[in-house]
């Protein structure tokens, strides 16, 4: 594999970038947060360089091979961001004196004006500055974003530069990629709502550009438009929400707003009804960005983008932006710490939206055959879990049960972490599968036009039995799926358990309206077990379903490393971080909570007890029911339909071999009758939401657009054209005065002077 070795030599230019942050940190008493701007600026510098240099050296071989069309530059920029993040995280974790909770570093007063006060003195009012806001929430999300952006960029170098369909335009991809990363980092670091919104929009733009990367494909262009417009609906509401917030608090700075959310500008007590609508508007923005019901329609179509984009936008970063925004709203409702009471309804609405989306997305995922679409719906469903958890947290905090509130807030954010890691990896693994299947297909039917153009490398019905062909990918996907399903002890189990338990607790403690979300997410746990197992079995287990499978090999460089790293993280991080007290850490209230000051063994026992044997008998029942549904019922049903051992002579590796063998042991069940039912068709059509929206748009927006087009053509343009043609006619008349004879000009000048004299005399008398 001399060629492969050569490939990794390209990483050598990264070494100086790796050295930047250690150099800064070792140099005297530099404060890490003073360098937080590096996180955003590094991609910002890389973006134009990649774009312009790429345009110049488009067809150049050196550019293509040794810079991977800018991928290496992007990787370098993201490396700087990642190492800076780790530096700040390290400082934060060792409790550096300079960083405490909610540290704000402000560099610049961007917009500020002086205000004349009632006693005739001037006061400076900081409207908008540039700064960073660092607490455990933003640090966690920042780490997730930088880490995954780095790995996905690495993966994209392998994936995009060997992608057969986009010759010579990869610099565009990498430029948009780093711009997107910039948006995400900036949004997380922003220390006020307006900056958050600006970076939020940067992400929206880049998601549009990246989804439509294959813009010559009609479906990709359509998907990009759909994603952009759907999220724009949410963004308009978000903007309204920000205006209401400004109206209440007179500032959008976190420092001002969160200092005491119960008193608004001028010391007035905040009206909970007004604040409720502000929060609702912000929540609708989050719903659009995180693809929740009813603004969920864009996410499945967004899979038209290249697979690294799916991993980046739809797993690791952008969809988490909405969750981040909702998690940021906690201080408003936290009645224990100056919050505004009377906002339980907001928490219930968030939880209901989450529950509905979780159930709906999981049920649609049952019938998808496209491997990326399954993952897309799974993303929606898992994000909805987190929303349900955040809804419960909002509810608990608002009725002053702050222990439960912070616990479920921490669990939700922990689930965000687990899900981002697992889903980023799953998307990359699916990319690996698609890539290798596509290459095998090209190899097999090389140069022959025998009607294989309709071959879809993403369709799981063309796969099967890939476990022995793609060992690393199969292992990665198995651990990722386990984390998403919530197999005990792995990844997402710890966080999902917490969310479900606390949502049920809210019901048990007398809030009957919580029953709906609680039942929905419990059912979804079992459904997740089914559809994730189904995806894995359809792809990796059983006999091959097409002749392409025999020719699949895991050869492309750059693709395996991120998968291996993330597999390890997904497999162990759930347990390790839970024991280390990440739930307390993320909820940002370290002093009050449970794990403080215990020994490691005690912590392990405490966590295991809480996961499997909670004190409350009813919660314990719910927990065991979740495990039963997601671990036993779902996967076994899936293996009865799609499982099976490999072809004779094929051997899968240690990690996945047992699973493949096991999947063949539960017998076979034929479900073809089910797939012809009306329910299956409805699910296949995504429960008709897309048709409904398109119908509504066709009735309302399109006639309106036609009318405005007519109005523009005939009224606006008509008036302009009338003015234009009339003035042309007028100018013909005026031209007659220029006779060309000097005598006439002198006469006119004389008459003019006389007129001026007459006027002046008229004025002076």
């Amino acid at each position, binding site marked *: 594999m001399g060629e492969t070795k050569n490939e990794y030599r390209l990483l050598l230019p990264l070494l100086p970038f790796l050295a930047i942050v250690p150099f800064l940190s070792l140099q005297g008493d530099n404060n890490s947060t003073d360098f937080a701007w590096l996180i955003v600026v590094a991609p910002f510098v890389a973006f134009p360089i990649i774009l312009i240099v790429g345009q110049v050296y488009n067809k150049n071989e050196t550019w293509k091979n040794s810079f991977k069309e800018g991928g290496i530059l992007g990787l370098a920029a993201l490396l700087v961001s990642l190492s800076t993040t780790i530096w700040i995280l390290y400082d934060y974790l060792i409790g550096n004196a300079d960083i405490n909770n909610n540290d704000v570093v402000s560099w610049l007063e961007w917009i500020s004006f002086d205000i004349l006060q009632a006693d005739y003195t001037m006061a400076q009012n900081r409207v908008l500055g540039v700064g960073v806001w660092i607490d455990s929430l933003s640090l966690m999300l920042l780490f997730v974003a930088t880490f995954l952006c780095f790995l996905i960029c690495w993966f994209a170098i392998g994936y995009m530069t060997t992608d057969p369909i986009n010759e010579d335009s990869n610099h565009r991809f990498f430029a948009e990629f780093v711009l997107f990363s910039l948006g995400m980092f900036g949004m997380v670091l922003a220390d006020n709502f307006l900056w958050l919104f600006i970076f939020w929009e940067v992400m929206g733009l880049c998601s549009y550009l990246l989804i439509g990367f294959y813009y010559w494909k009609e479906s990709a262009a359509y998907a990009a438009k759909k994603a952009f417009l759907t999220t724009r609906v949410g963004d308009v509401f978000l903007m309204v929400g920000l205006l209401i917030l400004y109206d209440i608090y007179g500032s959008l700075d976190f420092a001002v707003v969160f200092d005491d959310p119960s008193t608004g500008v001028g010391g007035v007590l905040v009206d909970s009804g007004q604040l409720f609508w502000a929060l609702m508007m912000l929540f609708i923005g989050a719903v659009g960005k995180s693809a929740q019901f009813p603004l969920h329609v864009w996410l499945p179509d967004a899979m038209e983008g290249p697979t690294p984009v799916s991993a980046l936008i739809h797993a690791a970063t952008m969809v988490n932006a909405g969750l981040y925004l909702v998690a940021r709203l906690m201080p408003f409702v936290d009645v224990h710490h100056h919050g505004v009471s009377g906002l339980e309804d907001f928490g219930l609405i968030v939880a209901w939206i989450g529950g509905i989306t979780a159930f709906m997305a999981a049920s649609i995922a049952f019938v998808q055959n496209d491997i990326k679409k399954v993952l897309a719906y799974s993303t929606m469903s898992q994000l909805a879990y987190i929303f349900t958890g955040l809804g419960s947290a909002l509810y608990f905090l608002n009725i002053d049960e702050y222990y439960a509130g912070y616990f479920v807030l921490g669990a939700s954010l922990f689930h965000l972490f687990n899900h981002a890691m697992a889903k980023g990896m799953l998307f990359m693994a699916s990319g690996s599968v698609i890539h290798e299947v596509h290459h095998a297909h090209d190899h097999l039917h090389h140069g022959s036009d025998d009607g294989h153009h309709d071959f879809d490398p993403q369709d799981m019905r063309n796969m099967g039995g890939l476990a022995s062909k793609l060992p690393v990918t199969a292992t990665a996907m198995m651990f990722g799926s386990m984390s998403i399903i919530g197999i005990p002890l792995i990844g997402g189990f710890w966080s999902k358990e917490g969310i479900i338990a606390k949502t049920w607790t809210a019901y048990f403690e007398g809030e009957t309206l919580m029953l709906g979300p609680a039942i929905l997410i419990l059912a979804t746990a079992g459904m997740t077990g089914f559809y994730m197992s189904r995806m894995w079995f359809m792809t990796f287990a059983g006999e091959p379903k097409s002749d392409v499978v025999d020719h699949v090999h895991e050869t492309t460089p750059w693709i395996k490393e991120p998968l291996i790293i993330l597999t390890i993280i997904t497999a162990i991080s759930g347990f390790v971080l839970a024991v280390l007290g990440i739930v307390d850490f993320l909820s940002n209230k370290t002093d009050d909570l449970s794990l403080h000051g215990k020994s490691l063994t005690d912590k392990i026992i405490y966590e295991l007890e809480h996961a499997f044997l909670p004190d409350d008998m009813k919660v314990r029942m719910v927990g065991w029911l979740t495990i039963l549904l997601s671990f036993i019922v779902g996967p076994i049903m899936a293996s009865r339909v799609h499982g099976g051992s490999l072809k004779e002579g094929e051997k899968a590796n240690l990690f996945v071999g047992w699973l493949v063998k096991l999947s063949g042991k539960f017998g076979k069940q034929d479900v073809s009758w089910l797939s012809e039912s009306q329910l299956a068709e409805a699910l296949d059509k995504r429960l008709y939401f897309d048709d409904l929206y398109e119908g509504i748009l066709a009735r309302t927006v399109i006639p309106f657009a036609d009318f405005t087009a007519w109005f523009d053509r005939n009224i606006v343009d008509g008036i302009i054209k009338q003015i234009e043609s009339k003035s042309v006619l007028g100018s013909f008349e005026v031209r007659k005065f220029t006779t060309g004879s000097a005598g006439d000009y002198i*006469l006119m000048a004389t008459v003019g002077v006389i007129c001026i004299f007459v006027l002046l005399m008229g004025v002076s008398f």
Partner: protein
Amino acid sequence: MIDPSWISGLGVILFGIGLLGAFTRKNAIIVLMCIELMLNAANLNFVAAASHYGDVDGWVFTAIAIAIAAAEVAIGLAILLSLYSTQETISLDEANILRN
């Protein structure tokens, strides 16, 4: 001492002659001369007023106006020269290519 109104009257007459000439004559050099005549009519008024009020400002204005008139004549004659070299005429009736 002559009454300044006589001198002003002379100025008005000179100005009228100049204006009439500028309107009616076709020869560009004559028109230029007529313009000079009008300028000098104005100068005469300045000088008359200056001597009447015993104020030096009028003389200063006159000196400046004469300098400007000289510069103007230089430019005017240069234009006429190039007009003649291209159009072979200095009749204002024939030099009308800027019309309409």
